[in-house]
C-alpha cells in the first residue's frame, strides 16, 4: 500500500511537470497552430540562465525568478522574430522551423556552457524524502513541484477566464478574424500566448532538472516528449486537457516503472499514446465542434 502511495505521489510530481510542458504546448498550439518543438530546449536555456544568475549573485531564488522572466521574453521574441512568419504557412513549415530553433538553442548552449555534465543544478527545496516505515514517500521538492505547478495552472485559468486580456486571448484563438473586427490586436495576443508558454515551460525545467536529470543542453528533450504525450492525450486544443493528460502520463509512467520495471517506462508512454489516439484521436478533452448552420 505504501508503495502504491509512493508511486502515486511520484507520478503526480512528474505528471505536474509534464502537465506544465503540455500546457505550454497547448497555449501556443490553440492560438497559432504551431507545435513548438523548441519548447524543451527553451526551458533548458532558461535553466542555464538561472544557473548563471545564481552563481553570479549567490541567490537561488533570484535565478529562479530570472528563469521565468527569461522564458517569458524568449517566448515573445521567438514568436515575433521567427514563428510569426510560420503561423500563416503550412503546418509542416512550423515544425521544421521548430526543430531548427531547437537545434540552434542546444548548439548555442553547448558553445557557451559545454556539452558535458559538469555542473550540479540545485533543487528549490530539500530532496530528502519522508518515509513511512522503510518506504520513501515524498520530499519537500515533490510538494513544491506539485504546489507550484498547481498554482500556475490556477493563475492561468483565472487569467483566461476572468480578465479582459484572457477573453481577448480566447477570442484570438477561436476566431482571429472576428476578434480583429472587434478591435482585438490578435498579433499581440499570440505573442502573449507564446510568452506565457515560455514562462510555464521555464518553470517545468526549473522543477524537473534537479530531480533525476543533469543539466546539459539536451536536458529537457525527454521531458518534452512526455509533455507532448500528455498534450496529445488531453487534446492539443484544451488547457484543461493538457493538465489532465500531463498528470495521467506521469501516473501511468510511475506505475509502469514501479510495477513492471523501469525499462518499460517509455513503452508505457507509447502504449498510452496509442490507446488514446485509437480510441479518441482528438484527445480526451477536445472541444465541442460547433454546429455549422
Amino acid at each position, binding site marked *: 500500500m505504501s508503495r502504491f502511495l509512493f508511486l502515486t505521489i511520484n507520478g503526480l510530481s512528474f505528471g505536474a511537470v509534464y502537465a506544465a510542458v503540455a500546457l505550454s504546448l497547448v497555449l501556443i498550439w490553440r492560438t497559432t497552430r504551431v507545435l513548438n518543438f523548441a519548447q524543451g530546449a527553451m526551458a533548458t536555456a532558461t535553466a542555464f540562465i538561472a544557473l548563471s544568475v545564481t552563481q553570479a549573485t549567490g541567490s537561488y531564488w533570484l535565478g529562479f525568478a530570472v528563469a521565468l522572466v527569461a522564458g517569458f521574453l524568449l517566448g515573445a521574441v521567438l514568436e515575433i522574430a521567427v514563428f510569426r512568419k510560420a503561423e500563416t504557412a503550412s503546418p509542416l513549415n512550423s515544425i521544421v522551423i521548430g526543430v531548427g530553433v531547437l537545434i540552434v538553442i542546444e548548439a548555442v548552449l553547448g558553445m557557451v556552457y559545454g556539452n558535458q555534465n559538469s555542473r550540479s543544478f540545485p533543487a528549490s527545496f530539500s530532496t530528502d524524502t519522508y518515509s513511512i516505515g522503510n518506504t520513501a514517500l515524498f520530499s519537500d521538492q515533490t510538494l513544491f513541484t506539485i504546489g507550484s505547478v498547481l498554482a500556475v495552472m490556477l493563475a492561468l485559468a483565472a487569467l483566461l477566464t476572468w480578465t479582459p486580456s484572457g477573453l481577448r486571448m*480566447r477570442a484570438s484563438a477561436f476566431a482571429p478574424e472576428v476578434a480583429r473586427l472587434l*478591435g*482585438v490586436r490578435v498579433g499581440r495576443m499570440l505573442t502573449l500566448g507564446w510568452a506565457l508558454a515560455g514562462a510555464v515551460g521555464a518553470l517545468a525545467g526549473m522543477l524537473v532538472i534537479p530531480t533525476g536529470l543533469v543539466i546539459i543542453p539536451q536536458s529537457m528533450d525527454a521531458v518534452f516528449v512526455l509533455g507532448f504525450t500528455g498534450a496529445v492525450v488531453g487534446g492539443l486544443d484544451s488547457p484543461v486537457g493538457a493538465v489532465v493528460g500531463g498528470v495521467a502520463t506521469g501516473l501511468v509512467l510511475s506505475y509502469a516503472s514501479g510495477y513492471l520495471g523501469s525499462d518499460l517506462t517509455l513503452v508505457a508512454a507509447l502504449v498510452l499514446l496509442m490507446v488514446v489516439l485509437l480510441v479518441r484521436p482528438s484527445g480526451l478533452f477536445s472541444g465541442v465542434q460547433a454546429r455549422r448552420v
Partner: protein
Amino acid sequence: MTALLQVEKLSAGYGRAPVLHDVALCLEPATITAVLGANGAGKTTLLRSLSGLLRPTGGSIRFGDHDLTRVPVERLVTLGIAHVPEGRGVIAELTVEDNLRLGGLWRKGSAAAADSATAIAEVYDLFEPLAQRRKSHGHQLSGGERQMLALGRALVARPKLLLLDEPSLGLAPLVTAHIMALLRTLRDTTGLTVLLVEQNVHSALAIADQAVVLALGRVVAQGPAATLQADENLRHNYLGF
C-alpha cells in the same frame, strides 16, 4: 449633407483574380443601403474591402476624415464601424455573455467598463432570447439566436456604421422580419447607418433607403430602393423576380 462613407473607383480581388471593378458608393448618415446581386457578384468582397479584411487593389474609401484603405482592421471599431461577417461570426466556444463583453473591450479609459455594461444591458433588452441564455455557449444557440448575438455584439460598440453580411441567411422568415424591423428602428432612433448585403431582395428593399446592384463585380444599378424595385428590366435581369 456630407456622406458618412464615400467609396470611389474601388477595385479588389483575391490573388490575381480581380473581383470588384471601379465600385462607387456613397452612404448618407442614418440611411440603410442594400447591396444586392447574385452569388459571386462581389457583395461579400465589397464588405471585406471596406473593413480592411481584404486590402483593395485600387480606389479610395473615405469614412469621415479617415482613409479606410490605411486603417488597420483592429482600429475600425474605434472609428465607429462594426462589421458582422457572413456566417454570423459568433464565437461558438464562448458564452453569450463573453461574446457580448468582447464587443466592448476596445473601449479605453475609466468609464469604459461602465459604458460597455450599459450597452450590453441594452442589447439584452433588444434581444429577449439572449438575456435568457447568457451562460450558453455559441454552439448551443439556434441560427436566429446566433444572428441576434452577432448583431447585438456589434451594437455593444454603438457603431455609426454597421456592415451586415447576409443576416437572413438560413433564418426563419419571422426572425428575418424581426431583424429587419430592428435595423429600421435603430436607423430612426439612433441614426445608425447600415450597409446591408442581402440575398433576400424583398426583405432588403423593404427597409432600404437606397440600393446598389452588383453584377460580376461592377455596379450595374444604384438608386432609391423604391425606384429599383419598380424597374422591371432590372428585376428580371439582375434580381431574379
